[in-house]
């Protein structure tokens, strides 16, 4: 894969340029939408429903973390089918197509988080030092989403209604993650199952380091790394099996 690094970067840049229509303003717009969403939600929960400040801040972090997962996986679905000529007309390792899509998404996500930081600073009055752990968590999250992307993009070649199915799955996952309600609302007997949702684990970690100022425990770090490795292994395995017939199926 290393010898293809320039191609990976070129495809990532192409993806971003297309997304931002090659303009600074397009880039600005793409940041504005998550920002507005976050501010509207903040306003509703903080001022209309009168929830405490802590909850509203956690909501912002949760939304940003969620967006990386939701956008990363749903845009991965079409990476193979949408770039048919790169699959059927030339040889390149096809994982590159998924990788560059996930890279474009992590860059978008990083920009959103960078916009979020000053907002957190204003609301909290400070930024915890533990925020320095953010890049590490984001990297683990990236591998998790890349693995999921490998699985989804290769299955989509054979099952073209997977995008509708995945849309429903992500909607369910959204409500099964502690984003618009706090984790403490989950009853004890449900908690073990609830924590099986990988996104929940990641969101808890982001909040720990960005808001509460706690270093993540070794155990929870091990848990998210295991999720990332599992997703990557399953994704790679399925992808390398299915990719043999990509050119026939597209």
């Amino acid at each position, binding site marked *: 894969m290393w010898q293809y690094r320039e191609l990976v970067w*070129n495809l990532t840049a*192409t993806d971003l*340029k297309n997304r931002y229509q090659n303009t600074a303003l397009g880039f600005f717009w793409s940041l504005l939408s998550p920002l507005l969403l976050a501010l509207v939600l903040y306003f509703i929960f903080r001022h209309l429903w009168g929830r405490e400040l802590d909850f509203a801040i956690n909501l912002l972090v949760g939304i940003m973390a969620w967006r990386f997962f939701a956008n990363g996986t749903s845009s991965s679905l079409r990476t193979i089918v949408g770039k048919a000529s*790169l699959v059927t*007309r*030339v040889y*390149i390792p096809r994982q590159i197509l998924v990788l560059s899509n996930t890279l474009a998404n992590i860059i978008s996500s990083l920009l959103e988080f960078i916009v979020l930081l000053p907002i957190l600073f204003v609301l909290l009055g400070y930024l915890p030092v533990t925020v320095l752990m953010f890049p590490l968590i984001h990297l683990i999250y990236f591998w998790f989403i890349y693995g999921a992307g490998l699985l989804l993009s290769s299955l989509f070649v054979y*099952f073209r209604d997977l995008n509708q199915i995945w849309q429903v799955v992500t909607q369910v996952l959204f409500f099964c993650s502690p984003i618009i309600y706090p984790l403490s609302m989950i009853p004890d007997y449900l908690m073990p199952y609830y924590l099986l949702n990988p996104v929940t684990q990641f969101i808890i970690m982001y909040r720990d380091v960005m808001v509460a100022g706690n270093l993540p425990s070794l155990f929870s770090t091990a848990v998210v790394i295991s999720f990332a490795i599992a997703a990557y292994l399953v994704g790679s395995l399925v992808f390398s099996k299915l990719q043999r017939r990509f*050119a026939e199926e597209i």
Partner: protein
Amino acid sequence: MSAIIVDNISKKFRIPHEKKNTVFQNIVGLIKRQFDYEELWALKDVSFEVNKGEALGIIGRNGSGKSTLLKIMARVLYPNSGSISLNGKVASFLQLGVGFQPELTAKENVYIYSSILGLRRKQVDRVYDDILDFAELKKFENMKLKNFSSGMNLRLAFSTAIHAVPDTLLIDEVFAVGDEAFRKKCQDKMSQFKTEGKTIVFVSHALESVKELCQRSMLLNEGRIVTMGDTEKVINDYRAMLQGHQ
């Protein structure tokens, strides 16, 4: 020294009576128990070698397996059995301008297409001016590709492709597009590649081009090699076969 060794390759296509490509259709198919499909052997026990610096032509009727064979050599399709080994850098031209982005400029597209063909950025920097000059598009380097005419598009793609300097070129009919002048340019370029000692595998229906470029050729029919050898003789066999069918 062999540039390409193709060892006993077979390729089977499954053609289902009813194509199922959604979860829904698969479930319906399971319930109705429709699993019928036809098997088509596009290639059967094909073995041959291409020497370094040789130009090999592949001819045959439509559906004889030429393109399938070329796609397997290009590693786009995987054979059901058999193996293939390639020495040196291989560039496949099954289509020109793969990965061109209409929303990006000519310059950006040259860099993208070159990296798909396996060139480093630094290498592209060195030949960039040559590419644009050869395509006669220097003036338009910052124009978006969507505003190019199809002829300009083709010239840019071709010019980028020939500057990719692979050791082996796999060429499907791609160069048989464009006007007379363009085809002439392609012919000249391929002859030049040959004198430079590059290995070429050339699939075409244009028998005259094959005769001009390739000393050795292969005739495929229904997925098997009928004859392989001196191009003149193979073309005669092909013509005889065509007449036999009429």
